[in-house]
């Protein structure tokens, strides 16, 4: 059973009283509720509807991953400096007869110069000893503050929302360097590709496919509008894993040079009706492979066909596309994404 999602950020409180008011909230709650937290999840956004958009999202996530959330809406353009705060909790009953598990949400609105006080607001309200995950929604700010970023354990972004990805990736790299190995970088666009990469990889467990992999001649990626960066990250993954280098072809078009000296061509095809995650077609001299997802389908259809052999066909999980599901898979992950930066570097000139 899930508590109904609410858009209200909860009870308004004085910033200096937040911990005390949270304590009172738990004292007054019935014995059937228990507070739980695995992580400090900070969400920072400058979107005007940030609170209304993220509160239901947090309520959904709380069902599977307990947290203390600090939802911060920054409004640096406001003329007057002001800080407002609210507290609420998201409770879920996992099994009949068990206690409800509750996650705390503290919401802040930072107006004007107060928006620059993000580090202070965050550091004052963290749950001690739990890791700090920061989901920065929208474009990253230039000139990152080392005093803040060195304390972030995981920085989550979504490159799909960036209007200038080349600059933003450079900033992301800069922030990661400030973290000196502490800060793990996570791009939700990359996370979104996990099941597609998994399905593609599975094809090449087949000996007949494996022996052709290094001679891959054509890559076709179909993506929905707004998902070009997703397609590029997938292409970058193939390029980095297969050690291709980007160069210009005979007609001036970008192609990949394979280690065997031959070229691999690619096309990114934007389709109105494509699933937001992609369909991929791979072409070999005497074989084809494809991974396709029906709109809203739970599975990818995975096919491999070699001339003269029986076709191979399988289904692979496609994962869920909702932001809450993608974020959950990232919250559950304790390791880094070692293939992310090599993949970005492989397609950097195309960004």
């Amino acid at each position: 059973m899930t508590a109904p999602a609410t858009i209200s950020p909860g009870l308004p409180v004085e910033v200096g009283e937040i911990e005390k008011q949270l304590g009172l909230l738990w004292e007054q709650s019935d014995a059937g509720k228990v507070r739980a937290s695995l992580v400090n999840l900070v969400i920072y956004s400058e979107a005007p509807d940030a609170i209304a958009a993220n509160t239901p999202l947090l309520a959904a996530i709380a069902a599977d991953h307990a947290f203390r959330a600090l939802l911060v809406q920054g409004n640096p353009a406001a003329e007057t400096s002001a800080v407002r705060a609210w507290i609420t909790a998201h409770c879920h009953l996992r099994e009949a007869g068990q206690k409800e598990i509750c996650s705390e949400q503290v919401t802040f609105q930072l107006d004007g110069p107060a928006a620059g006080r993000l580090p202070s607001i965050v550091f004052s309200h963290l749950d001690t000893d739990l890791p700090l995950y920061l989901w920065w929604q929208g474009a990253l700010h230039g000139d990152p503050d080392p005093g803040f970023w060195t304390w972030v354990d995981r920085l989550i972004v979504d490159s799909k929302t960036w209007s200038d990805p080349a600059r933003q990736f450079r900033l992301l790299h800069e922030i990661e360097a400030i973290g000196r190995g502490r800060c793990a970088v996570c791009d939700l666009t990359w996370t979104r590709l996990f099941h597609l990469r998994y399905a593609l990889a599975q094809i090449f467990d087949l000996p007949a496919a494996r022996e052709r992999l290094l001679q891959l001649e054509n890559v076709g990626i179909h993506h929905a509008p707004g998902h070009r960066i997703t397609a590029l990250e997938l292409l970058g993954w193939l390029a980095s894993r297969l050690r291709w280098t980007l160069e210009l072809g005979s007609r001036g078009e970008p192609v990949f040079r394979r280690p065997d000296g031959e070229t691999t061509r690619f096309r990114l095809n934007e389709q109105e009706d494509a699933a937001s995650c992609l369909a991929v077609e791979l072409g070999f001299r005497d074989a084809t492979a494809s991974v396709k997802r029906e709109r809203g389908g739970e599975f990818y259809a995975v096919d491999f066909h070699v001339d003269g052999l029986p076709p191979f066909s399988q289904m692979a999980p496609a994962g869920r596309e909702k932001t809450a599901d993608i974020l959950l898979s990232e919250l559950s992950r304790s390791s880094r994404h070692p293939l992310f930066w090599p993949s970005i570097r492989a397609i950097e000139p195309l960004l």
Partner: protein
Amino acid sequence: MSTPTESNPLRTDLVNRAVPDPCVLVIFGATGDLTRRKLIPALYNLAADGNVPSSLAVVCFARRDKTSEGFREELGEAARKYSRRPVNDELWRRFAANIFYHQSNFHDAAGYESLGRELDGIDERLGTGGNRLFYMASSPTEFDAILENLRASGLSRAKAGAWSRLIVEKPFGTDLPSATRLNEAVAAAFPEKDTFRIDHYLGKETAQNLMVLRFANTVFEALWNHRYVENVQITASEPLGVETRAGYYETSGALRDMVQNHLLQLLCLTAMEPPADLGADAVRDEKVKVLRALRPLTGTGVADNVIRAQYTAGFINGRDVPSYREEPGVAPDSVTETYVALRLHIDNWRWAGVPFFVRVGKRLPKSGTEIAIQFRGTPPVLFNRQSQLQDPNVLVIRIQPDEGISFRMAAKMPGAVLQIEPVKMDFHYGTSFGKATPEAYERLLLDAMSGDATLFARRDEVEHAWKFVDGIRAAWQDGEAPRLDFYPAGSWGPREADELLAQDGAVWRRL
């Protein structure tokens, strides 16, 4: 031969475990309950998670006259009933297309020859590469015939560049001689490295977490010895009676049904030394050392340290239930134990003098399996000067249900008066990690397909466990055997079991 992960560059960083090779799973005795309730739902869930090999076929070998189409339908119904997640029709259709029924008597050599031809055909059609995983899900009375025929037909021999493995379901024999005979029959057909003896308790998350708890946390391992531990209690209780298993249970009893395998495995994981690495043999070497250090119980030692009992009529879960001897299929004068409690000692440096109390029983008030580490009390100074005021610290590892870990400690109650009360810190898997826990069979099938034997019992483990249990059974069959005690259904066992612990100043935990 390289594994898919090693040879496929696209696999890097996608899974942090070995990827199973394409293979054919052959289930002997496939029309039984295990296939419907556990194996097929587990395979379906692995497919839904994308964890099955790129090519997987299942051949169901059984005596009854059925067709592949008809059997797929039966299995489809079972998958819908027993799968932990809803069945997707399209995925099931594709998955089931590679399930084949092979009708044959287990004793018929021709049935194995035709099986071989069928497997070769599947390899050619589906690219399963000659890899075979044979699963013994039949009655144990058929094991010898199946193993001999697999050997004689050459099916147990791995083809060049491929593997041939065997999964054996419990019981691994009924005593040491029969277990040794079975192991020899297995060894005649399959090398030990390709033999996977399933104890599904080892596939449970909390059992796997025991090693993580002990060896990935500084604080516990430092206290995990006779200097700090007063006793260890391992409990497996269930409210159910024998249900439809009277025929089996009458010949088995609680000692052989639960202690020889599941509870001794849990004891080994609790008591073993840190392995040199996480490889299958390093872990199993350490478990065997525990079994070898287990003080044998024979003769009067059994009378002093083992309580056996049987349930009488009682009241449980809101209804009256009959006594064991009144259950259908049970002899009216049966002396089969439905409850057993043991005081065990592990004679090694770490555990010298620490009793391990192990109990298992049917028709107990609650269902639960747990390991409780009871720590010693504090010295008799300060808060302990007058008497042993506090309950000592207890670390409880709950195996099922509600998998998790709790720790009891003393705390001062708020107020002017110094009053100390026990408080509990509790970790629930379900609370902290919301995602559904895979079934034990999913993990174990995946491991067998990947060639990882860590969570399976090795031959010497099984034989050492039988040797220990046989000593107790021999004493029970002796003329001076300790009597069979009785307990009412719905109680926590016989009074004699409480007295066993009282001798050490201990009491059973109430679950």
